[in-house]
């Protein structure tokens, strides 16, 4: 456990060709902070960077509180005060989001990038019918009149696979099941005709069968419209099926970014390894969980042959202050490394 040697020799390959198509979304050095109880700013997202090609699916995985949702919200300029984007850049379709005016943001939200949320039932206004929700989007984004908007709303409900669209159109959110509500949210998103969909744990709290239906729907839509997807989840099984690349986040930092196959086969970062180890496989006996040793973090160290050491949380904090960087260990496979050895190493 104490020492980890990467399987492949590390090559920083600056000669690697960049993506052919211009990226659809680019996030660089994004840092989002919220005031802590003592009213100083404390970062929940630190220097996160990745890019997304058109039609690509990227998964953001990580434990609760690792900054996945805040990264997504910041991408749409939706960071809720008193939180702030402290530094960095987000470009969607070439347009800078960070620091953009409210009207620019409004043009981008929905029509360029849209988001669906964790609890679809509370993401719908309880006083408005499904028809109100959908036709409002059509009227805002396509400038349709009331009747045409209603017709489009009905068509959209059919498109997202609703069985009784006429009835659903008149229903209020509290009369929908979670799966139906998520379909309505997807419909509202689609009505804006965006290029990028950010799905924040879209199936948490739904039945497993409904969950696969929702993902099937998203995959269909992607095949149909070429929608790029950022999927936030902590379910690696879902990721394996649906995403091209995986970005792993821990404590606000991106710790590993790799194509799906590469990550499952050759994960480098200890946190990713722990995440992978937590997947239960029916064909393998569950791994015994060691309850005796205290939970510690392991960090990669840039020099010393990329050894990884288990360190305490305090040491991790000190180390984090040394500004770790993403190193490319294989083509398209990046791992967070610390430039200096840890101050204090513990077994």
């Amino acid at each position: 456990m104490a020492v980890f040697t990467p399987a492949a020799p590390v090559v920083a390959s600056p000669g690697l060709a960049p993506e052919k198509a211009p990226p659809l979304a680019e996030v660089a050095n994004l840092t989002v902070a919220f005031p802590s109880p003592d009213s100083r700013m404390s970062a929940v997202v630190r220097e996160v960077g990745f890019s997304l090609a058109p039609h690509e699916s990227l998964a953001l995985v990580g434990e609760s509180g690792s900054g996945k949702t805040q990264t997504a919200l910041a991408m749409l300029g939706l960071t809720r005060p008193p939180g702030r984007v402290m530094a960095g850049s987000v470009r969607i379709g070439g347009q800078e989001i960070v620091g953009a005016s409210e009207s620019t943001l409004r043009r981008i939200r929905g029509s360029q990038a849209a988001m669906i949320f964790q609890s679809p039932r509370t993401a719908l206004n309880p006083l408005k019918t499904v028809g109100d929700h959908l036709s409002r989007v059509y009227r805002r984004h396509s400038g349709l009149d009331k009747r045409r908007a209603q017709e489009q709303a009905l068509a959209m409900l059919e498109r997202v696979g609703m069985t009784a669209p006429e009835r659903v159109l008149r229903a209020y959110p509290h009369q929908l099941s979670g799966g139906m509500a998520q379909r309505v949210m997807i419909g509202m998103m689609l009505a804006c005709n965006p290029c990028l969909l950010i799905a924040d744990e879209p199936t948490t709290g739904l039945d497993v069968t409904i969950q696969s239906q929702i993902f099937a729907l998203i995959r269909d839509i992607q095949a149909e419209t070429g929608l790029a997807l950022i999927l936030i989840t902590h379910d690696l099984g879902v990721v394996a099926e649906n995403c091209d690349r995986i970005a792993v986040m821990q404590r606000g930092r991106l710790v590993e970014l790799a194509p799906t196959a590469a990550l499952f086969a050759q994960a480098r970062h200890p946190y990713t390894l722990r995440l992978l180890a937590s997947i239960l496989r029916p064909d393998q006996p569950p791994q015994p969980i060691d309850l005796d040793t205290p939970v510690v973090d392991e960090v990669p160290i840039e020099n010393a042959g990329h050894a990884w050491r288990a360190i305490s949380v305090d040491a991790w904090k000190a180390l984090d202050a040394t500004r770790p960087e993403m190193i490319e260990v294989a083509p398209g496979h990046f791992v967070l490394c610390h430039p200096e050895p840890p101050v204090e190493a513990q077994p």
Partner: protein
Amino acid sequence: MTLRWYLLRRLGLAAVTLVGVIFAVFFMTRVLPGDPASVKAGAYATEEARAAIAREMGLDKPVPVQLTTYLGNILQGDFGTSTRSGQPVRQDLLSRLPATVELALFSLMLAALVGIPLGVWAAVRQGSRVDALVQQWTILAAALPLFWFGLVLIYLFYHVWGIAPPPVGRLDLGIPPPPAITGLYTVDALLSGNWAAFRNALAHLALPVLALGVATMSPFIKVARSAMLDVMASDYVLAARSLGFSEREVIWHDALKNALIGLLTVAGIVLGYLLAGNVLVETIFAWPGIGFYAWNALTGSDYDAIQGFVLTIAIIYVFLNLAIDVAYSLIDPRIRLR
């Protein structure tokens, strides 16, 4: 279908409560250890006089008989006779009700029209200086003794600055009241085009309405603020923002209506304040409504009048709460379609 059931159930509940209220007033007067006959007879009455009054009131009869008589009377609209005016209590109360309604309506308007926007404003600017000031004002206004605040207003506006009319009644002595249409002097004066009476009625309303309005404003501010904060932090507001709707549209289209529903649920509390505060304010301003009538009855041991007053207020309150619940169920689909 379900809405009809809900309304029927709510109506039935109100009827049960109403019967309960009548019983409660009966028990309040006959069964509590106090002796209504001696209250009615006054402190200096002889024992014979007291006994005569007790007989006249039927207090010598067994309680069930008293209860039946009482219920029969109430259901016929007989609230007894006032010893002060010699009139039936029901007639006294009915003739004074419009004055009370006028005062209450204006106060409610002041409290709501100032209180709700203040609360919403504070919520939208959460954590700002405005928010802090509004909250401090809420706390102060909630602690104001209403009767004292009325006196302070009279002292300042009438005695010191001389800009308010004498705090007695609804109109100056020389001004004849407008023809009774609604009983609300301001409305009647407007309908009959009597500008002098309208202005004078408004001037007389100003101070009592200010006192009562300020006293009932706090709950409005408090609830409007917290309801608005809840709604602005809700998922559907975030979702609306993420779809590119403007902040203004989100506030007007999504947030406000939901926040106002929250307000409706506490409207009952506010109305309770208002009905209770009426007695104090009408007493201070000699406002000829049912509250002032009740005060006169209290000081004159006018037994039937007090009882009639308490019963009337409770009946009004039950109906107001019923109306609020019905309005609530019509606005909120979660109840309408349950």
